[in-house]
């Protein structure tokens, strides 16, 4: 999961922006070089040698003023043209009645993804079929957040009461690391995004699996005890588990939590030990997150962990 989200390795919608950045960067570097060389030149060439001879007083020359006004204007016209080109390439338009393929809802501090056609619901890790351009509606459940996966293209704010739209496409399989990029409160740092791009068959297989509901648990097992505790501690008020009566919408859907790579929006890897740690004291792991500390005993933690681990 720890992949370098550098802008320099990029996908199809990110490429025009990288190219624009390269172009603008070269122009800016050239101007900076010019200014630096001029400043260094005058600093050394016209440094006072201690003998106080008053230099010739020059009040200015209009021709030079015109030169360094018109010159930058021409450079900016060029950059502006490149900007418009990159805008169209990296953020293609869409029809007014275009229906989204994927709805992403930002929450303090995690991401919810709803695949409109299949009905799959995922959290924090978003699976994409490689080479297919998905139309995304971006919403917020509370404050302003920002969707940003650098290698896949532009960032876009998730604004409450103001849904935004963007295209999402990965052109090669892999894990793309991203993050919330608008300050959204205490745990803004741990609101990371993982995008998993995979071939169409693998993606379809994943989607099919996500639609399955958990099977019956053997009675008397730790997992069955854990399911009891899940009810007893009213976890279902916030979390949904498919095929059960737990239908909460505040926190992430846990129907397939066992199949996720990370816990608590990228805070750490999804291992039974980390899950147990999280259940024991969520406020130590992710202070101020909305997951309360239920003061569970070690046995209760073990049983709940066993239950959640069955939700593959």
């Amino acid at each position, binding site marked *: 999961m720890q992949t370098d989200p550098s802008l320099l390795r990029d996908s199809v919608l990110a490429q025009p922006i990288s190219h*624009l950045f390269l172009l603008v960067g070269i122009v800016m570097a050239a101007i900076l070089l010019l200014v630096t060389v001029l400043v260094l030149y005058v600093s050394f060439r016209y440094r006072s040698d201690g003998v106080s001879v008053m230099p010739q007083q020059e009040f200015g020359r209009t021709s030079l003023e015109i030169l360094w006004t018109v010159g930058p204007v021409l450079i900016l016209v060029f950059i502006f043209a490149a900007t418009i080109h990159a805008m169209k390439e990296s953020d293609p338009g869409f029809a007014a009645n275009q229906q989204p393929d994927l709805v992403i809802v930002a929450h303090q501090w995690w991401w919810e993804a709803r695949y409109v056609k299949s009905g799959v619901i995922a959290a924090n890790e978003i699976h994409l079929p490689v080479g297919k351009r998905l139309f995304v509606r971006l919403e917020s459940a509370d404050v302003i957040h920002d969707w940003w996966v650098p290698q896949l293209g532009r960032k876009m704010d998730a604004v409450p009461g103001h849904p935004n739209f963007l295209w999402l496409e990965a052109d090669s399989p892999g894990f793309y690391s991203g993050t919330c990029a608008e*300050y959204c409160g205490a745990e803004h740092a741990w609101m990371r995004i993982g995008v998993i791009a995979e071939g169409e068959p693998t993606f379809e297989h994943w989607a099919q699996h996500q639609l399955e509901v958990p099977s019956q648990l053997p009675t008397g097992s730790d997992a069955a005890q854990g399911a009891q505790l899940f009810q007893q501690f009213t976890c279902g008020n916030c979390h949904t588990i498919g095929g059960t009566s737990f239908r909460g919408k505040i926190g992430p859907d846990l129907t397939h939590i066992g199949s996720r790579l990370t816990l608590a929006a990228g805070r750490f890897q999804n291992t039974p030990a980390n899950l147990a740690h999280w259940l024991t004291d969520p406020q130590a792991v992710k202070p101020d997150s909305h997951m309360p500390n239920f003061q569970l005993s070690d046995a209760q933690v073990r049983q709940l962990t066993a239950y959640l681990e069955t939700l593959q």
Partner: protein
Amino acid sequence: MSDVPYMPQMPATSDHVGATVEHEKAGLLGWVATVDHKRIGILYLLTSLVFFGAGGIEALLMRIQLARPNNSFLSPGAYNQIFTMHGTTMIFLVAMPALTGMANYLVPLMIGAKDVAFPRLNAFSFWLLAFGGLFLYFSFIAGGAPAAGWFSYAPLSEQPYSSTTGVDYYAIGLFVLGMGSIAAAINLIVTIAGFRAVGLTIRRLPLFVWMVMVTQVLILLALPALNASLSMLLIDRLMNGHFFVTDSGGSALLWQHFFWAFGHPEVYIVVLPAFGMISEVIPVFSRKVIYGYEFVAASTVAIAVLSFLVWAHHMFAVGLGHSIDVVFAVGSMLIAVPTGVKIFNWIATMWGGSIRFTTSMLFATGFLVMFTIGGLSGISFAAFPIDWQVTDTYYLVAHLHYVLFGGTVFAIFAGVYYWFPKISGRMLSERLGKIHFWLMLVGFNMTFMVQHFMGLIGMPRRVFTYPDLPGWAALNMTSTIGAVIMGIAVAIFLWNLIVSFVTGEPAGNNPWDAWTLEWSTTSPPPAHNFDLLPPIRSRRPLWDLAHPEDPDWKHGH
């Protein structure tokens, strides 16, 4: 016009001015009760210095927390309060008071006046600042400082998501500061418009005064927008209003439009007077008249006008649509043109000069390159698809610090080394000054140059910690070490101020052989500023006095 020196022209309403300056009290009460623009200017500068210490310590705490990935030196709650207070402090309690303080001290001296137009209002403005600042900092012990960022975006800043009183302290504190700034702006505008010495026409004004004048107009137009939006935020928070509460029909984007309608002019409010100081320092130490005076002054006005037309370039990522993005990109790119005009005129002033690299001139020269870096990275944001990638990352943190630190703060250092002799009567140590400059230049670039790369490899800003992704730890550690070097440089600067105030070489009236009116009086100036003024027939009256064979007015300037 005769060459006989004459008294400064005093306006008909100046009786109370004369009365107040003659009755200055001694001791602490003298400072608390003062209405002398020079003392008030010094109070502004000292207040700015104190808060610079506070904001600097906040910055160091943040850099310590970010030195290593997954660090736990600060809790997220503490970190978020500290970064909010760092930004708010540096803008409202450091940059603005430092520049207002400089203007307060220098403008009457540079225009040959006895004081500002409304001395009592001037004292009132300062005390609003002092108490507004204390009020804001009181929040730390009143249940927690604001933690919604200096920009306080709704609905995060609203009651459901910021339930401590921090944001209330922020809103009321900034409201009070805003009133002080508006009053000071009115005072300075009237002073410059009506209290200039005979002969000092608008076209002969020193460029610092020019830029202060333009800045005050910006303050007068921009700060009310902030105060209005702060009032709306308070109505939301304390009286269950709905301006920005999205759950009950308010608009989150409305706050952003209001805030940046103030916020972008604000950038120029804290940059233009810095340009003004650079425009005084570079000619004097290059031994040449400013190159292209009219163009430097006119480009200031151009920047001021454009600054009101670019606010939505802070909002390219909120989804306003391509057509709006394009309009604001055009305005933002245009600002580069008058800014470039200034840079080239300053370099042309140095060209062919006989440059004395005092500490002041070193900072001014450093400013030229550092500010250019900030200006150029600014253009990459105006090319807004780049903004769609790098806004709200460390690339932006780097950009804004090259503008506000490499620009404004370097210029303020240049100004302090230049005018400290006038204010205190003593020279700052050049030896300490040069150590200060070189440490600052190295530390500053080490801290912020690497932050460009952090942003480009995906590190968002305003995070209290970060995962251990490839390259992140090394870049962050470099930045932290740079910040420590900056801290040492600031400590040396403070030491220099203290030592030189006590044992510095006496300055005399005009240690730099400068040409504007403030250098014609004693250092420090008497309460009434001038006994005699030289004749003012050009932009450089003291040059004319020293070079009767080649006065500026013979060239028509």
